[in-house]
């Protein structure tokens, strides 16, 4: 994880956000403070200057020469004092008569000009020499106590002799103000920098546990459950860390990693495969000794029939029956095992043709049962023809097996249900009680005593397996004493690929 000055990888880090957030504010504050401070400084300093100007002017107006009257005739008397003013830092000085005519001026060119306007005024001017603060002070006739004059009843109004005007340079003042402003800006920026640095440091400290959390969360996502982060504070981040730790531990408790599951699935598949092999081999290899048992028992029975006692005859019969039954059972189990193991080789074929083959194979039994077969039109299906043949054979054989005394009628039909075919094989046999219907397709479930009806209980389980391997469904409808119909579906599309 790259941690440059800007923090997190994407660059979109908190640190950068902090800078982006605070910096404009800090700069704006500095600018505002600078501007404000300059104004204040300028204002204060100007005020000072103005006072100074007024003092000078007032001092001037007290001069006896000035008290003597302000007129052009008296210019020569007044001018030297004006010149004196210049030397004390004043830029220019002027004396005006009551009408505003310049009587004497430090700048000779101004003599004689008339300036209207109020006599008592502070104003700022722009001159070729720079900004200037000009103070105009009225010259009153009277002593220096005149400053304290309060116009009241009984006092005679004062007589104005004219105006003294003094101009002071503002440049230095303004520069001082600027300097002040700059210093303020610097101070503000400095304070902000320190403040920002503290914030960044705080942020780093805060972000560190968050980064640890992010790392742990990523690893959790990658499958490393149970990992915890250190809880280094008791604030909201600490709470988050604690919650994360609880979550991680909980996940560790309940999670089974995908690898474990895969391993278990593989193991189960292997175990299944082994069991299938075992069932196949067992049912196959068991036939051999069974044939012997059956064969020699039969031989014994024939050869010694009646020559041993009745019990022996009976015992031999039991043994023979037993071995025959076992042989039938093994054959069916083998059939079932083969149906499970063999890969499906599906192709389109005419169901009609397969049914005909099956009926031909079962002809002896059908003939014995006096059975009539009613066939509806059957479609072309895509499936494993051998397995479908086995399916139909089992269903028809069942119809033959579980028939009533009446002549057997077997009905085979199909109907189109859009995405699949529904094939039905029905009979008018003994039927099945509704409460037994759900046990019909269970392996080895037989509903009758083995003497009443032959059968190993494998047939319908076999049918179910075949139908399911093709992605279909099988079910039964029945009424006792009326008959049974077995329905099964065959999807029109190819069966889905199967797991092993």
């Amino acid at each position, binding site marked *: 994880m790259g941690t440059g000055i800007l923090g997190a990888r994407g660059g979109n880090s908190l640190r950068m956000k902090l800078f982006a957030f605070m910096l404009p504010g800090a700069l704006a504050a500095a600018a505002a403070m600078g501007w404000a401070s300059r104004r204040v400084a300028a204002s204060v300093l100007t005020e000072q200057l103005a006072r100074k100007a007024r003092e000078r002017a007032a001092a001037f107006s007290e001069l006896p020469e000035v008290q003597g009257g302000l007129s052009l005739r008296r210019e020569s008397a007044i001018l030297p004092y004006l010149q004196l003013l210049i030397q004390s830092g004043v830029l220019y000085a002027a004396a005006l008569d009551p009408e505003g005519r310049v009587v004497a001026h430090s700048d000779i060119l101004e003599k004689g000009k008339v300036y209207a306007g109020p006599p008592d005024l502070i104003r700022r001017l722009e001159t070729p020499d720079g900004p200037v603060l000009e103070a105009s002070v009225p010259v009153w006739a009277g002593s220096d106590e005149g400053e304290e004059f309060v116009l009241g009843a009984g006092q005679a109004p004062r007589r104005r002799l004219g105006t003294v005007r003094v101009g002071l340079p503002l440049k230095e003042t303004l520069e001082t103000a600027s300097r002040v402003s700059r210093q303020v800006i610097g101070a503000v920026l400095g304070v902000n920098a320190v403040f920002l640095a503290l914030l960044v440091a705080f942020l780093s400290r805060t972000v560190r546990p968050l980064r640890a959390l992010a790392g742990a969360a990523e690893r959790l996502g990658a499958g490393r459950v149970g990992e915890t982060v250190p809880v280094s504070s008791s604030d909201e981040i600490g709470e988050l860390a604690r919650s994360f730790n609880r979550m991680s531990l909980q996940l560790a408790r309940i999670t089974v990693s995908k690898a474990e599951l895969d391993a278990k699935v593989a193991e189960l598949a292997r175990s299944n495969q082994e069991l299938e092999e075992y069932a196949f081999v067992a049912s196959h290899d068991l036939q051999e000794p*069974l*044939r*012997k048992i*059956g*064969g*020699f028992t*039969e*031989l014994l029975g024939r050869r010694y029939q009646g020559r041993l006692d009745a019990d022996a005859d009976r015992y031999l019969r039991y043994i023979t029956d037993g071995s025959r039954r076992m042989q039938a059972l093994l054959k069916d189990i083998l059939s079932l095992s083969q149906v499970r193991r063999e890969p499906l080789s599906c192709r389109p074929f005419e169901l009609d043709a397969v049914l005909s083959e099956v009926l031909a194979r079962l002809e002896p039994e059908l003939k014995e049962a006096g059975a009539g077969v009613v066939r509806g039109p059957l479609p072309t299906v895509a499936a494993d023809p051998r397995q479908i043949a086995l399916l139909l054979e089992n269903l028809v054989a069942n119809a033959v097996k579980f028939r009533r005394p009446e002549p057997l009628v077997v009905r085979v039909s199909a109907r189109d249900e859009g995405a699949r075919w529904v094939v039905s094989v029905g009979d008018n046999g003994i039927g099945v009680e509704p409460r037994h219907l759900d046990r019909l397709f269970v392996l080895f479930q037989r509903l009758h005593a083995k003497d009443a009806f032959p059968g190993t209980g494998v047939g319908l389980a076999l049918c179910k397996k075949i139908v399911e391997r093709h992605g279909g469904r099988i079910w039964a409808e029945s009424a006792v004493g009326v008959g049974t119909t077995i329905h099964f579906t065959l999807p029109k599309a190819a069966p889905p690929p199967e797991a092993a």
Partner: protein
Amino acid sequence: MKAPAEILLVEDDEGDVELVRVALAALPGTPVNLRVAGDGEEALALLRGRGPGPGIMLLDLNLPRKSGREVLAEVRADPCLRLLPVVVLTTSDREKDIRDAYALGANGYVCKPFGLDALARTMGSIIGFWFGTATLPPR
């Protein structure tokens, strides 16, 4: 009296041999002279030995040491024995076994049936065909 049908049965299991004998004995008509070889080596020795060979050979696939398949292959490879009709008589009904047997040149493949009567019928039909219906190859 008809000449007996000469049959070589290659079968290692005594019980199975006995059953075949019993089944054959029950057949009416053609008498059968059954010779038995307990394994492939014995069978080939018998076939290559002196005296007239059998009319047909009934060959089990599950034999010790040399398998039935190997025996069949050898018989078909041997110019003297090549023409001998061989009927595989075995318990397996696996498609692979059937296919392999015919591919190696068996003349027929018979699954041993269950039950004495069925076995008798089977033997009857084999003998009936090879020693009745069909004409055996010249020696």
